C-alpha cells in the first residue's frame, strides 16, 4: 500500500429493529421535513405486513423502507448528529452506524433488517 491510498470509507447503514416499530410515521415526516420532500416523495416509506400465525392470530409488522431518496442525512451526520428518522423514531427502533457495528447489534435482535441505502 502506498502512502497516497485512501483510507477505506466505512459503509454506513440503518438497522430497523422491527420487533418494536409501531407504524407511527414519525420517521417518514422527520425525513420530509429534513429534506423538504414534497407529497409523493420521501426517504422512507412505511410498509405494513399482516401475517396469520399458525394459531390464526395476527402478527402485525411495520417496516420503514429506505428509498433512493435516503442519503442517510449526510449533512446531519457530518455535524455529528443522528439522521432525523433515527432521532425522532418514537419507538427508538432505527439505528444508524457502520454496517459492521449494526451487524453486531443485529445479533441480539429477534427481528431486524439492515439497510444500506447509499
Amino acid at each position: 500500500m502506498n502512502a497516497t491510498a485512501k483510507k477505506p470509507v466505512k459503509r454506513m447503514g440503518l438497522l430497523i429493529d422491527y420487533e418494536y416499530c409501531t407504524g407511527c410515521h414519525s420517521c417518514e415526516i422527520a425525513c420530509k421535513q429534513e429534506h423538504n420532500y414534497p407529497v409523493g416523495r420521501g426517504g422512507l416509506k412505511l410498509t405494513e405486513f399482516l401475517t396469520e400465525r399458525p394459531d390464526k392470530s395476527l402478527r402485525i409488522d411495520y417496516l420503514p423502507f429506505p428509498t433512493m431518496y435516503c442519503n442517510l442525512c449526510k449533512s446531519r451526520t457530518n455535524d455529528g448528529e443522528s439522521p432525523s428518522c433515527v432521532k425522532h423514531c418514537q419507538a427508538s427502533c432505527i439505528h444508524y452506524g457502520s454496517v459492521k457495528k449494526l451487524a453486531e447489534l443485529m445479533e441480539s435482535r429477534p427481528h431486524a433488517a439492515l439497510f444500506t441505502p447509499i
Partner: protein
Amino acid sequence: MGEMGERVVRMGAWSAGPGCHGGCGVKVTIKDGKLTKCEGDEDHPYLQGRLCPRALALTQYIYHPDRLQYPMKRVGARGEGKWARISWDEALDTCEDKMRTIRDKYGPESMVFGQGTGRDAGGYIIFLAYAYGSPNWTLFGLSGISCFTPRLAAMSMVMGDFTFPDAAQFSPQRYDDPEWKAPEVLVSWARNLAGSGCTDHYFSGHWAVDMMKRGTKLIVIDPVCSWEASRAELWLQIRPGTDGALALAMLNVIINENLYDKEFVTKWTHGFEELKQRVQEYTPEKAAAITWVPAEKIVKAARMYATAKPAGMRFGQPLDSNREATSTIHALNCLWAITGNIDIPGGNVITRPPFGVTIYPYSTQEVIDLYGEEFVANLTKKRIGADRFPLVKNFRAWALSDMVLEQMETQKPYPIKGLWCQTNNFLANTAQDPKRHYEAVRKLEFNVVVDTFMTPTAQAIADIILPAGSFPEKDSVFTTGVPINAIQKVIQVGECRSDWEINFELAKRLNPQAVPWANVRELMTLRLKATGLTFEQLAEQSWTMAPKNHKSGTVPYRRHEKGQLRPDGQPGFRTNTGKVELYCTNYEKYGLDPLPYHREPIESPLSTPEIWEKYPLIMITGRRNSAFFHSEHRQIPWLRELSPFPEMEMHPETAAPLGIKDGDMVWIEGVRGKVKRRARLTPTMHRQMIHALHGWWLPETDGTSPNFYGVWDLNVNQLIPMGEQSTSGFGGAATKTMLCKVYKVKDEEATV
C-alpha cells in the same frame, strides 16, 4: 446554533400545531423571523428528542395558505361564507359590546363558553367565562363530557386522586432512576397506546414500548387487533361498551382465588366485603356472554395481572364512553387498589399537577384554588346540569353538554343567547347529533369562533372569527403532566394572537377587576409561584420538575403512607374515609350505586335485539390516528398523504357477502341516519364490528351552506344521540357502540 442569523429555541409543544394534550419538548429553529424547523429536544425528559408526525409537520401547519390570519366578521347570512376582514380593535369592540348586551339583558349565564380538547384550552376559557360571570364553561357537544372528566371524577371520588402507570415520568433520570421498576405486566385497556400517535399528556403511548424493551409484558383489551394487541402476551377482543362486566369478572377471580394484596386491602381500603359480595354476580362465564371474551381468557388475565408485582394499568377514552362510565372506571380502580398497585414504583402512581401549579384546572379543588370557594359556589347555582347531577355539581365545574344543548333549544329555565366557541369544531367532530347542535346554535344571537383554520363550524355559525396562534406563536405553560413546560412566542403569523392573549384582553374589557395583571406573562408568573421561577426564567430553561418528596405531594411514591395526600397531613387518601373507597361513600351521597356494576349500551345485541337484527354491526368511532388530532390536520399535505380518504374499516369476510371490495364507497346506516365512507378491508377488524375514524371533513371542498366541507356526508356522529349520558351525568357518549349496517352506494351517489 446553526447557520448565521438562525437561532434555536427550546420549549414545550402543545397544540395548536401537533394538536394533542402536550408533554414533549421541542427545539424550533427561527430564521429571519420565520420558523424553519421543529425537532425533538433530546434534553427533555418526556420523549428524549422523539417526536410525533404532527409536530414534525409543524412548518406546513404554521405557514399553510389557509391559516386564518386576521379577524373577520360575517357580512352575509350565517353559512353563506361571506366574510370581511376587520381590525382587532373592531373585533374585540364587537365582542365586548355584544357580550355586554347579553349580560345586561339576560345575565352572564346566558353566554356559553365551549371548548374542544387539546391546546391549553381549559385554562383560558374558564378564565374568560368567570371574568364575564358565566358558570357555563363546557366541552361543547360531547355527550356526558365523555373524555377524561368521567375518569377524573370517578377516580377522585374513589381514591381522592387519579393515577397513571409509572414510567418513571416523575424523575429526570427516567428509566435509569434506581427507585423505578419496570412493571411485570402493563394492561393497555381500550387505549391503543403506541397507535394513538402520542396525543397524550400524563402518559405517552410509546413509553409502553420503552417498558416492553425492559421486560414488561402486555395485556391488551381492544376490540381491534392493534399493533400492540399483536405483540401482547394476552389479547382480549372485547365487545365495545362491556368493559365494566370484564373488570367485575376479573375482580371476581382475583377475590375468590385470594390473589389480592391482603395487607393493602386491610390497611388502605374501605368496603371490601361489600365489593366481594357484588362481584359474585359477575362470574367469568356470565361476563364471557356479555363481553364476547372467552371465560378462560378472563380468568387468565385476572391471574396474570394480580400475580404480577408491580403491574400497571392504562385505560382510554372508550371507558368514558361506557354507558355507566363512572361506575366502569370505579371497577378498574378497584383492580389496581386490591392488588396493591397504588403509588408504588412500576404500579399506578397518583398524578397531580407538578408543584401544585394549575393553569388548566382538572379538579374542583383546583378551580376553587384559582377563583375562591364563595365565587365558585355562587356560580354553581346557575351552572347548567349542576342541579340535576350531584356529581356534575361537585366535580370540576363543567356545565353538562347534553343539558346545555337542551337549554339552547328550550331556552329554559333561563335563556341562552350566545356561544363563545374556541378550539371546538363541533359540526365535524366534538358533538353527537351535530345537526341538532347546528340548529340550536344558529338560532343564538351572537357566536364567536376562535380557531387556526376555517372549519365547518366557523362557516356555519360564527358572527366573528378570531385567528389563534399555533404553539410557537404564544406564551403559555403546560402543567397537566410532568414536567412543567414553558411555551413561548417566537414568531408572528399575520395578525394571529394566542388564545390566552385574546381571552386575557377581552376578560379585562369585560371585568377589569378580575384581571389585575398587565399581561399574560405576569399572570403565568403568579401561577408559577410554587416553582420559584418566573415565566421568563422557566422559558429560559424550558422545563422544570418537582424534586422527590416535594412538599406539594406531587411526586411519588407511597404518599398515602407519608401523609402527603390529605390536606390534614395525616396518612391515607383524600377521601371521606381516608381510604380507597371500593364502596364509594360520595357516590352513595349523590344517589349513585356505591359499588361498580355493568349496564348495556343504549343499542346492543343484548339490549336491543330487534335493532341488532336489522343493523348487525357495531360501529366504533373515535379511534386515534397518528396523522390527525381529531378534526385537525386534514389540510396539511404531509399528514393528509398518510391518510388521504375518509374510510370505514371492515373485515374482508364481513365485506365479501355484501359485495364490498376494498376502495368501494359505502353507506354506514344506523337508526338515526347514514353517512358515506370509503371501505378499507382489513383482518384487524372483528367480523361483527366496523371502525370509522371521527373528525372527517374535506377542507378542499365547498365550505358554505349546505355542504360545509362535506360534513353531512361524512360525520358519523350523526348516528349517535345526545341526552343518553351516564346516570352520574359524566360519560356515556355512545361513540363505540351504535349499531349499523353497511352497503354499497349506487354509482350516481359515489362522490367524496
